[in-house]
């Protein structure tokens, strides 16, 4: 009798925890659609006529193909905003990319410079810090080597800095090669919900893990906080946490026309490495504990939840079926078994909303989605969830071992095909 009560209590507690996690995911994913007013609030402010800030854009590269770099650079140089410079940031142990970088810089000597990082340890934050030293303009922006910025992006970012009196502006990134692999559609939609909705919810709560791409920070502020953390795998998230803790004004803006376009990882292995790195980075940021300096208990709770939610979410997808099977086979009282099923309500609701979001994703980016796409989005979900769970687990193992080596995502340039196609359709 006592053992039944004890086991039942465990099942109920686990089920309620999973319910909370799944509900939180549902809330964050759909935040932007709660109310049409939220949608207005989360879009860019109107474009001002005059330019008021100048930009230094850092483009960190490592083992990149020349065509990928050239496309990224072209998108930055053809920005409608007039006051900008680009710094290609490379590492000294990667001579081919260094050579490409210099070749590109020589083509546009007055706009492009190269920063070579000669640290023994190689990672993105160290490269960024090296590049930061030679930045000259008001605002520093980061663009990953494989990302294609929208032409009017900088002008709009400029306006946001002015009208919203921002210290940091986070623009949106969108993966677009949704047809390439079985996981790419899920991956694309994940980015869509992240930048379209989740970040806005975090922004509203005053605690934002920033993204590493299309992020703009006032240079003085960046120098004042000592740049990026060179030992952190999620340097972007870490910077967001530190700036949130300082109470700086971080604005997140979204407009489908202004997203920076990127490609999904080219294989499941790459995806797992990327996700492991992110998970590990979040764990590092959590362990660093800067968030504990937040002023109120409520804020600290939000920060704790935001940093942990990533891992919770990854595990929830695997734990929910396990908990249900355990509850059904364990011969518990009916009410206990039914409670074990509760997390399925927000989980399935999230998937139902995913279909609406996929429709919106297609509309925003003018992709002709077929019913097969909707079908494979649903079918792919459990498998994608397993990849996330596996990566989180892998990160946890690495975290325990103290293995913080940088696993870089390689870029094949498959997003460029989609952009060309879109450009052909536009003209």
């Amino acid at each position, binding site marked *: 009798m006592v053992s039944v009560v004890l086991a039942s209590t465990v099942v109920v507690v686990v089920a309620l925890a999973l319910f909370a996690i799944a509900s939180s995911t549902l809330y964050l994913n*759909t935040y932007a*659609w*709660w*109310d*049409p*007013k939220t*949608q*207005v609030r989360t*879009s860019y402010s109107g474009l001002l006529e005059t330019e008021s800030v100048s930009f230094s854009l850092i483009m960190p590269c490592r083992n990149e193909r020349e065509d990928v770099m050239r496309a990224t650079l072209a998108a930055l140089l053809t920005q409608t905003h007039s006051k900008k410079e680009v710094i290609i940031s490379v590492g000294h142990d990667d001579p081919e990319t260094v050579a490409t970088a210099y070749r590109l810089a020589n083509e546009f000597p007055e706009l492009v410079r190269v920063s070579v990082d000669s640290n023994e340890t190689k990672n993105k934050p160290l490269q960024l810090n090296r590049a930061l030293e030679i930045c000259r303009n008001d605002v520093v922006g980061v663009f990953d080597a494989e990302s294609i910025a929208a032409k009017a992006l900088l002008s709009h970012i400029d306006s946001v800095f002015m009208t919203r009196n921002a210290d940091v502006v986070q623009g949106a990134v969108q993966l677009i090669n*949704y*047809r*390439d692999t079985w996981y790419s559609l899920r991956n694309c939609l994940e980015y869509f919900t992240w930048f379209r909705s989740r970040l806005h919810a975090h922004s509203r709560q005053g605690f934002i893990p920033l993204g590493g791409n299309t992020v703009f920070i006032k240079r003085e502020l960046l120098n004042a906080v000592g740049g990026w953390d060179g030992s952190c795998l999620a340097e972007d998230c870490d910077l967001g946490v530190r700036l949130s803790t300082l109470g700086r004004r971080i604005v997140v803006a979204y407009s*489908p*026309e202004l997203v920076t376009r990127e490609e999904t990882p080219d294989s499941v292995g790459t995806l797992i490495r990327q996700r492991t790195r992110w998970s590990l980075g979040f764990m590092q940021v959590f362990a660093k504990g800067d968030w504990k300096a937040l002023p109120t208990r409520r804020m600290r709770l939000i920060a704790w939840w935001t940093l942990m939610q990533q891992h919770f979410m990854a595990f929830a997808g695997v734990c929910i079926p396990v908990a249900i099977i355990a509850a*059904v086979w364990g011969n518990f*009282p*009916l009410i206990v*078994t*039914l409670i074990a*099923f509760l997390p*399925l*309500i927000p989980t*399935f*609701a999230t998937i*139902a*909303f995913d*279909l*609406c979001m996929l*429709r919106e994703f297609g*509309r925003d980016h*003018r*992709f*002709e989605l077929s019913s097969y796409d909707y079908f494979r989005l649903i079918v792919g979900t459990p498998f994608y969830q397993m990849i996330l769970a596996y990566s989180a687990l892998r990160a946890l193992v690495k975290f325990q071992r103290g293995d913080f080596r940088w696993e870089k995502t390689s870029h094949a340039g498959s997003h460029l*095909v*989609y952009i060309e*196609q*879109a450009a*052909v*359709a*536009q003209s």
Partner: protein
Amino acid sequence: MALLELRPPVRPPDQGIRPAHKAPLDARHSFTLRRLSRQDRLVMAALFIMAVVFSLWNLTGAPSYQDDEGTYTAQAFSVHKGTLAPYTYWYDHPPLGWIQIAALNWIPMLFNLGDGTAIGATRYVIAAFFVSSAILLYMLARRLTVRIPFAALTTVVFILSPLSLVLGRQVYLDNVAVPWVLLAFYLALSSRHALAHHVFAGTCFAIAVLSKETLAIFGPALLLTLINRPRWSNRAFSVVGFLAVGALVLAFYPLAALLRNELLAGPDHVSLQEALTFQFLKRSGSGTIFETGSSRAELLTGWLYFDKYLITAGLIAALVCLFRRNSRAITLAVALFALPIVLGQGYLPAMYIIAVIPFLALAVGVGVDIAWSGTEKLWRHHAGLKNPLRGSFVVALGGSLVLMSMPQWFEQDRELLTAETNTDWKNTMTWVQDNVSREDVVLAPYSMWHDLNSSGWDDPWSMIAVEKPDLDAQFDQIHPGSWRDVDYIVVGPTVLANIENLGLTRTGKVLENSVPVKTFGEWSINKMTVPLEELAVRGTP
């Protein structure tokens, strides 16, 4: 070519950039609890007091306790013990209705309300649901942009209609489900078009259906309420959220059946499948409404007896509701609800009407509001007619209320608020409690079953509800002597009809072989007189 095929098809660009997300245009849908005007507050407080007084006054005196009330009371008390019913739960109704009663009925029991009877105390719980319905009805009318006086009229009609008042104080699952369905409509009409409200509307509707399955008939009307408005950008999300979450919550009922291994029919166990076939296909029908003397026709006559004015006025007003976009769902709701009454032949329970009463009242409120808007237009065109038109509108409305419905309403409501119809019932019960040994096996109608059983028998197989010897297979296991094991039968006004309608042969045998030992009006307590030749079978001296 191969490369081309790998590329996603891209739609030609729209003309220019898509317009920003549209906010809803219906700013008039501004009624929310957060910003209540002074008038709304006062009216709601007055309506609340009125609903409380009318629902509590003489609550245990009239109407007389029904067997169904006793069934749900007994089932609610079983929930406290961790089961869904004192006998085998056979999926007659989804259990959420009496689970909600169980969540609340300890409060009136604690304060010893209801004349010291469990069924009386449970009526107090129903009163809480009735008051909630009354207030929600006003809120719903206001959200449908009905003017304050007419919204108040809606609720007053709902409270004062004898049909509503007599059914609204009885322990029926429909009364538990009604506030949930009203809340679902209120949330679906959320002025902010907030997704959360629409998702909760789906949840509330699922709770309503799990409280009383017949309310599922409002589903299409609710969906119409949600979407029949100027287009807004998140509409797809709202519809998907409403449907998905509603369906997921509903799914817990078949899931529970599945987990008990009772979803599909099989030998030696009850099942949801069998219960559904019984309720919808096999249960002896009520005939058609056009056939005089059929039980359907009789039911309608009964409902009309209690309030022909509300039913007639509500039906006419439901047609008037077609003239305003946001109230067309009311027409649909009333029409859908009427379908099984008019076209059906299957079993129709007497309390079926309960769920449509608030919608009839709402139709009246909205209909009057539409008529007022019409006259307003008239006097705008003919300025001189303003006062005469307004005056005659008020006189016509007030006159029709006072002259037509008030006399009948007053008479029936007064009866309901003063009559003592449960005296014989109470005396019978007390007599059994005082004079029958707890060792004796007693058959009792469900209306007093729980109160008797909990007064010392505490065993559903020695204090037995009259239907159970024939309808629950467990009886044979516990009473090998079958009907001969029974010592007493409590006979109330419904027992004979039940024996006939449900084919209760064993209970019939008991009645045949028993004689009254005590009589209170329509009630009597009969003691078995076992024939000598039967004693041998029974095996006791």
